């Protein structure tokens, strides 16, 4: 841009060229243009296409190939292996067949609390839809989509309460994954924001704590899994004397499914809170202090300042962090696998872990089917989240 601007400024000052000089200049310019084009084109080709091809080979092709895999079954034969197409049998097995109890869970009739949750969700959806319809601002197609979305939400809540708020119900890998994702995100965001708010102040040892808080993020998830495996080992782990001193000799994380899930969530939170912390810290440090100071001068309290100035200001960053953690959280495998092997029973078996177990026994078709169901779930949740948050951010703006 700079060079073209300067040439524009200089051109009028140049004398009018003679015919031969003009031709020579035109030839030179044409050659320069061709060289420049060739140079840019070559660079473009050289730098962009390898990356595009790499993405196509490493991402798109496996994505398409795994569709076929999810619809098939491997058969080993003399000198090779065949993929026998069996239609949607792998999906059928997961959603309605033998693996349903592991994938969705054991679903029983809801207890009174479960019914209350379902009815409350139904009522909320009905109210929201009625308001949208009466408002007249939503087009018919929008109303239809809202209706479908509402029904999906009620259906999801129905499945959840049958597994979690029922007598004899039990969550499967899908619901366990959702628990890990949402509980983890809430904890990580709350802790990350708290730590960021703390270190944005001029506290002693500020730089030191910034580095210390980042350490968990630098450790490989498998390493974190083994570390928590040792720490939660109450009979022979390094913290055994502490457990004993606290009178928790017979305490264990692993016989109760909810304690086991809590152990996984704590480990995951320990590892990923620093990510939330560092991004929010950067966002907080970039805020205009004058606005907050003006609010304080006008008599706003600390909470009011935080609620009405700080939170809205960091909302775009918050949106991004939660989206990243949401997508990443659905893929959780290291912590439940290393820490508990998905146990006790199937209490901590996430979707990715279930796919991994199938992969290890070369049940590649079912493993791919789980991966595709996970892809659909993540896409739906992320899309709903983004559209929901975008509207809120737009409203705030």
């Amino acid at each position, binding site marked *: 841009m700079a060079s073209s601007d300067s040439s524009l400024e200089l051109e009028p000052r140049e004398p009018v060229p003679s015919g031969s000089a003009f031709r020579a200049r035109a030839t030179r310019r044409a050659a320069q243009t061709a*060289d420049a084009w060739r*140079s*840019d084109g070559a660079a473009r080709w050289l730098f962009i296409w390898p990356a595009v091809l790499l993405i196509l080979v490493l991402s798109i092709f496996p994505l398409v190939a795994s569709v076929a895999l999810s619809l098939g*079954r491997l058969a080993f034969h*003399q*000198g090779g292996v065949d993929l026998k197409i069996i239609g949607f049998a792998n999906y059928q097995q997961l959603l309605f067949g033998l693996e349903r109890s592991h994938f969705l869970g054991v679903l029983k009739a809801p207890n009174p609390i479960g019914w209350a949750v379902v009815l409350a969700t139904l009522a909320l959806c009905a109210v929201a839809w009625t308001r949208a319809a009466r408002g007249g601002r939503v087009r018919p197609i929008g109303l239809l989509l809202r209706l479908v979305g509402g029904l999906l939400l009620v259906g999801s809540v129905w499945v959840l309460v049958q597994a979690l708020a029922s007598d004899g119900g039990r969550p499967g890998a899908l619901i366990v994954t959702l628990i890990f994702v949402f509980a983890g995100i809430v904890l990580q965001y709350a802790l990350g924001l708290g730590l960021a708010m703390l270190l944005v102040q001029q506290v002693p040892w500020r730089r030191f704590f910034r580095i210390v808080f980042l350490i968990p993020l630098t450790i490989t998830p498998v390493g974190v899994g083994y570390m928590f495996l040792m720490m939660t080992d*109450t009979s022979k782990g390094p913290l055994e004397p502490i457990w004993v001193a606290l009178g928790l000799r017979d305490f264990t994380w692993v016989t109760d499914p909810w304690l086991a899930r809590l152990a996984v969530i704590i480990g995951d939170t320990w590892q990923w809170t620093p990510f939330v912390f560092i991004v929010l810290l950067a966002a907080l440090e970039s805020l205009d202090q004058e606005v907050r100071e003006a609010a304080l001068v006008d008599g706003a309290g600390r909470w009011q300042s935080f609620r009405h100035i700080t939170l809205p200001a960091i909302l775009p960053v918050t949106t991004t962090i939660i989206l990243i953690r949401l997508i990443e959280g659905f893929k959780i495998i290291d912590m439940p696998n290393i820490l508990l092997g998905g146990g006790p*029973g199937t209490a901590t078996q996430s979707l990715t872990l279930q796919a991994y177990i199938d992969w*290890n026994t070369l049940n590649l078709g079912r493993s791919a089917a789980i991966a595709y169901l996970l892809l659909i779930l993540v896409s739906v949740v992320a899309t709903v989240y983004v559209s929901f948050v975008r509207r809120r951010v737009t409203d705030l703006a």
Partner: protein
Amino acid sequence: MSRYRMVAAAIIPILVLSACNSSASPSPSSAAPQASTPAATTQASAPAASASTVAASPGTKFKGISVNILTFNGPQVAEPLQRRAPDWEQLTGGHVNVVAVGFQTIYDKALLDASTGTNSFDAYVFDPQWMGDFTGPGYLLDLTDRVTNDPQLNWQDIGPFFRDFNATYNGKVYTIPLDGDFHMVYYRKDLLEKDGVKPPATWDDYLAVAQKYNGQDLNGDGQPDYGSCIAKKKGAQSYWWIISIAAGLLQGKGTNDGAFFDTSNMNPLFGPNEAITKALETYAKTKDFGPPDELNMDVGGSRGLFTTGRCALTMDWGDIGTLTPSTYAQDKTGATITPGWTQVLDRASGKLVACDATTCPNAVNGVNYAPFASFGGWSGAINAKAPKENQDAVYDFLSYMSSPAISGIDVTLGKTGYNPYRTSHFDNIQPWLDAGLSQPAAENYLGAIKSSLTNANMVLDLRIPLTKRYEQDVLDTAVSQYLAGELDAAGTEQAIADGWNAITEEVGKDKQLAAYVASLGVQR
């Protein structure tokens, strides 16, 4: 123009350097063709040739040949291969590259490598249970002629069980044993002798002994310890222990009877019947006398607790015996055959019946012992599609590793994860004493192994196509759910039966039945 030239100038040296680099240091697989020197080919093509049998100059026989072996990253199992490889390389001029991966990934890595034609590994040191998946499609090299004509290997010195079952499938030898595996029960000999308590003969005895010592201070540290430590973590070894406990209730008429399926119709024996109910209940009761987090403990945890004196009883492979030297449990440990039962399953009715001469012909004092050869022992198999010279070299290395002189030392070391499997391992007690065991401890340990190996009712581990899915997926998940209280006994039995039947139907019932019967058809 200048940018174009700069890019070109930057890329050309990179390409040239890459080309030079790749030609200077070839990958293991690219080294194979270079190894096909006339001398190496000639030597290697001799039938059943081995480093020590062919009169070749030391250090040149497999010169230039590099072989890749896939195995478990233990650190046991890979350790002896990595430690011994330089010695073999010195002897033959070859090179061994041990690729060690996690236990859960060996099976799929090996099978995909062979089935997709990648063939990046020349040999696999793996679980011989998986042979059913490898031998059918012809992924493994038939070693029958080699092993029987190899003086270095001394095939007849290998225990009959490991020769005829572990290494053999449908009458052909496919693997070279490096390890001998089956379960035994270990007990605190010092405590039981002091109290005049006999080692458990039945599982009821086991529970009684465990109850007696549970909560007592067993190692003098002033803290209460545990009556029994059996690893129960999901995705680890949990499913093997339940097979050991159920074995004596399921198999009464000898090895050929089978303990997994009814050999007449392929109906799962691990299904709704009184034997499995009793086995599950017994397995769950051992929890009452174990550490609080036993449900999340793998075999490394139970070994640690036993060798530090914190458990009165444990069940394990032969590893405990070689792990005790220099620990609290040294000279305080006794080993005995896996406890049995005084009842056995009547397969027609699904009920338990008392053991007698007809139902339990091999019973000792009315107790039906059925020691379980779980896993079978790490064994080396050769990729049928590996280059010929690599097959010869890697065979020679595996033969070297299994040879009496080398394996005689390795099986006495706890760090190897290898347990005895040769007659000479039992006859020559000196290496055991050198490894730190006392004479009585070594004799007790080897005696327990011998009594298991010579038992006519030994239970063979499942070895049919998709074995890993039957055991490590369906059985492991169902048993783990039972221990965690997610399923009751009836639900667990039904889940196992349904899961196993689904796998059987997937492969084909007739095919699986034929494979199962073939795997049991060993004449001993």
